[in-house]
């Protein structure tokens, strides 16, 4: 009795596996696949750009820029690396792992709070006892920018604010998640993340004097499997469908006349 049944079960597993691999295989469609490693905060904008990008079909890996840079340092070869800062692409360029990077967008660091929450209305509120904050880990760009802002505060306020940090997330997606599920009162994210959360979050602006310069830079990875399409992808970010997708997502164009990094 168990013999044939067990056989049937095994065939079912094999059938599921075959079906799954067929499904996976369909995606390629013969076109070459351009692999883009991009900062978590670029998720929505790049996904929209990818659907419109004609020269190749695109496949994205979104994570903390630092994680993606580390993968490239360890030998991973995506076609494009797009980072939420200039420092990481510059380092990879200096190490010979990336072609010369270009700044393609700027973003704004803000305090995000769950929509309808009134616990935090200003930067000063973050220092109040009992307020909970999610921040980026010091290694990810959003965490670096956050610490830059805090470094500009009087030391008492800085210490009190840091004491309220409850989680150091590996990327902005983690911070947004902690905010939308109501685990924290406030978090440091980019204004594009607030826009991407479709009403779930509200932005509290930072004082202009403390706002860090948040510039996104991208480059073609040296040894990339599809360098021509990779360059086309980056060109599109500087003017074209890519730029349009970025602007729709709330990014701003880099100041005119700015050379590559």
């Amino acid at each position, binding site marked *: 009795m168990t013999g044939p049944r067990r056989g049937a079960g095994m065939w079912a597993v094999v059938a599921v596996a075959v079906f799954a691999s067929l499904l996976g295989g369909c995606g390629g469609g013969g076109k070459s696949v351009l692999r883009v490693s991009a900062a978590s905060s670029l998720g929505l904008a790049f996904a929209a750009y990818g659907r419109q990008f004609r020269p190749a079909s695109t496949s994205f890996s979104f994570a903390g820029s*630092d994680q993606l840079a580390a993968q490239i*340092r360890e030998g991973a070869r995506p076609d494009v690396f797009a980072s939420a800062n200039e420092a990481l692409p510059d380092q990879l360029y200096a190490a010979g792992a990336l072609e010369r990077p270009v700044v393609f967008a700027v973003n704004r660091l803000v305090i995000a709070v769950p929509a309808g929450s009134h616990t935090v209305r200003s930067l000063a509120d973050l220092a109040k006892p009992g307020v909970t904050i999610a921040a980026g880990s010091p290694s990810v760009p959003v965490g670096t920018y956050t610490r830059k802002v805090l470094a500009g505060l009087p030391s008492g306020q800085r210490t009190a604010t840091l004491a309220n940090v409850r989680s150091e997330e590996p990327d902005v997606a*983690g911070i947004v998640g902690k905010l939308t599920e109501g685990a924290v009162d406030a978090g440091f994210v980019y204004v594009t993340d607030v826009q991407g959360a479709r009403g779930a979050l509200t932005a509290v602006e930072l004082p202009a004097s403390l706002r860090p310069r948040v510039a996104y830079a991208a480059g073609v990875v040296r040894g990339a499997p599809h360098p021509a399409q990779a360059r086309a992808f980056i060109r599109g970010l500087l003017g074209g469908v890519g730029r349009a997708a970025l602007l729709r997502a709330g990014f701003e164009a880099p100041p005119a006349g700015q050379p590559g990094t």
Partner: protein
Amino acid sequence: MRGRAFPMLLTAALALALAFLALPIVAIFVDVAPGRVLSSLGDPEATDALRLSLETTAIAMAVIVVVGTPAAYLLATRSFPGRAVLVTVVELPLVLPPAVAGIGLLAALGPKGILGPALADSGIQLVLQTAGVVVALTFVAAPFYLRQGQAAFGGVEPTLADASRTLGAGEARTFARVVVPLAMPGLLAGLALAWGRALGEFGATLMFAGSFRGVTQTAPLAIYDRFATDFPGALGLSAVLVAVSAALLMSVKLLAGQAGFRAPR
């Protein structure tokens, strides 16, 4: 010729499996200088993470053993309608992706989850707290113990328990004095698997409990955090975690061997 081909095939398959499974572990130790392992032990951030990992997994294991042992016994020895469904539900976290486990825990126990308001009213906070790490670890690791425990209890000769009862020992006494000692090797094996799984837990912990040094940043989260900025440091901490996990597995296996030796036959 024909007679030899099959054993050779088996040997080749085992060699392939062994090489594939052992290589990444060997590579960690080849890539990392011994001094680096020691210096990562001297790094307070790494030791904080290791200590938190050991503490939270130990608490999770205590909860799993106390609740899981009788639960596994019931599942193994009684037949009732819907038992097969129940066993499947209990085992489901085994095959759940950690991210799904994290989302599920949030939807159940998060501030906006089903039980969130009730928990908050009773002053219990889990998300972003050490207690939340324990909850996540218990969720992902418990099925390993429950599954192994059922098999262990199922393997205990029923006549031995019957004899104990005939001799006047009550149900509870028979369970504690006869059944559990007989099932001990299997229970310990289940504990080792559950502990190993808990030590390695990453995704559900990050989503449910977050990552904060000394509070919720367990060793795997600390490794991920430093992968980007300090690869040798990440390797060093990984080597320590491999050693701790291996030591745990070995010691539980030794214990299980002793228990098996001592158990009445």
